[in-house]
């Protein structure tokens, strides 16, 4: 029995994905606010023992594991019956997923199979009248709505980096409960995975992100951004307009339909700051914009701004930053 069940995920290189600890942090707070009787984690995959221990250290009182070679890669057909079996066994009031490639695909189908519904991409979770009040972004980031799922269990997907994990505590204990549920027969089958080779820092983990937009005027300019990023230990992002033009890979797109980032520093170069772009970077602690249009929307979110042609600003900025970083 647990009141809140978190569907955890493994990181591509092994170990738990950061979102798993964030979800367990949110679940622990919600469980306390709802007066529930515990937090559990569900893990589906092939080699989960280490991740299960990490989930316990991150706050799970119980970890349900379903391990099978056929579950090594996510696929809705294979995962659905297993996920449904775990929910049945854990009987939670609330089921949390990350708003990840898996979560956004699996959560709505699972919620439907359970006779319930899902609220997607929560920014904030609160207890109210015994239910989870979900604040989420809508209208391309122009508005927020507060919703509750009125059917049970309440399924919610949660945006990465929106929730704080618990302080690490290796002394936490919990039990691992193996679940014997047969993977579903895969109708849709994964043939091949093409991993975008992101040289350097991963976008979602970066402390600094340097992003370019359509105003760069040409794909070659991204090489300049990459050099600056390398000096700063930063990742390179792009607006959708730049990605749609084929100037930069879609895996680096920041925004509503791309990656959501919330670094300490976000540098937006020749990006207008449309709401759908800000939906992906508006949570950054500090935004700096270089744009030749003084009225560009991006400045409404920026701590520092330069109004000028980026081509004239960038060489000197690169040199100065290089010098500062070398001095440090």
């Amino acid at each position, binding site marked *: 029995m647990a009141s809140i069940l978190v569907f955890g995920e493994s990181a591509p290189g092994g170990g738990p994905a950061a979102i798993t600890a964030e979800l367990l942090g949110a679940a622990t707070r919600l469980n306390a606010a709802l007066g529930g009787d515990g937090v559990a984690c569900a893990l589906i995959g092939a080699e989960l023992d280490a991740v299960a221990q990490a989930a316990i250290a991150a706050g799970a009182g119980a970890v349900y594991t379903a391990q099978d070679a056929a579950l090594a890669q996510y696929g809705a057909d294979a995962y659905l019956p297993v996920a449904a079996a775990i929910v049945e066994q854990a009987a939670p009031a609330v089921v949390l997923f990350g708003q990840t490639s898996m979560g956004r695909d699996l959560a*709505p189908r699972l919620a439907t199979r359970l006779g319930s519904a899902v609220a*997607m991409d929560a920014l904030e979770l609160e207890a109210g009248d015994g239910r989870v009040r979900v604040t989420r972004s809508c209208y391309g980031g122009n508005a927020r709505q*507060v919703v509750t799922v*009125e059917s049970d269990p309440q399924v919610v997907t949660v945006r990465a980096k929106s929730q704080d994990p618990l302080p690490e505590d290796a002394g936490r204990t919990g039990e691992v409960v193996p679940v014997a549920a047969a993977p579903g027969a895969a109708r*849709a089958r994964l*043939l091949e995975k093409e991993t975008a080779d992101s040289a350097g820092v991963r976008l979602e983990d970066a402390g600094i992100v340097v992003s370019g937009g359509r105003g760069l005027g040409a794909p070659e300019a991204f090489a300049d951004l990459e050099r600056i990023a390398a000096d700063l230990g930063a990742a390179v992002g792009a607006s959708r307009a730049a990605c749609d033009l084929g100037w930069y890979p879609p895996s680096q797109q920041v925004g*509503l339909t791309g990656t959501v980032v919330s670094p300490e520093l976000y540098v937006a170069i020749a990006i207008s700051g449309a709401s759908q772009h800000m939906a992906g970077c508006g949570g950054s602690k500090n935004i700096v914009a270089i744009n030749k249009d003084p009225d560009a929307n991006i400045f409404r979110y920026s701590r520092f701004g330069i109004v000028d042609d980026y081509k004239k600003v*960038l060489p*000197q900025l690169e040199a*100065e930053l290089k010098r500062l970083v070398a001095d440090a």
Partner: protein
Amino acid sequence: MDAIVCVKQIPDPETPAAAFSVDEAAMRVVEAPGVSPVINPFDQQAVEAALRLREADGGAGTISVLSLGPDSARDAIKTGLAMGADEGYQLNDPAFEGGDAWTTALALAKAIEKIGLPDVLIFGRQAADLDQGTVGSIVAELLGLPSVTVLRSAELADGEIRVSRVVADGFESISTPTPAVLTISNEFGDPRYPQLRQIMQAARKQVTVWTPADLGLDPGEIGATGARVKMHALYQPRNETECEFIEADTAEEKAGLLAAKLREAKLV
């Protein structure tokens, strides 16, 4: 190859942020002056996907466009017809109002069964109003079909549909038998632009309108009474940031000043 494409009409998502406003009491978006609602852009790409799949299959088969929405939603259907789809269906009745993703998917699934299950059901990755991205998956679950979401391409291969799914760290190549549900992302590429002649032909085409009774649905199952997700508030987030513009005579000087500011703030 037969396909059904589900399309939704929404407030224009390209409405400039400054012209966007909500009526907090009514929990509704106020239509910006001079900005008409549009077909959800991802749904236009979904129509494009259906047309391309049919072309690759030799051009035979029927493409239907289905929308749940008020009278004005006919325009979204007509956009699909002008692009080259054959049949239009609209679910329009006051009883549908105030619904959520669940009630929408339920009605769409009933309509799809009534039209006849095609080889492929195509949706947008998300409607760019509430930005949820669930209706396609719920319909797939209701109809017991495989689903693959957030696609940048879809092709016929060996009697199946071969898709490329956009995931956080790259792409997955997936093959699915038909019938299947696909949801299309913007990486799919630009939809075709209808010719004037096609727009005029589409304008003359009949759109079949169905009510809940036509679908065997009880009004209590749909609309606000059937909804499982309840909205409590809708508002515009306040943004408090005051931008400090770096002023200097030359761009080079501005760059130097910015670098110094970033160091001072310990950001680099």
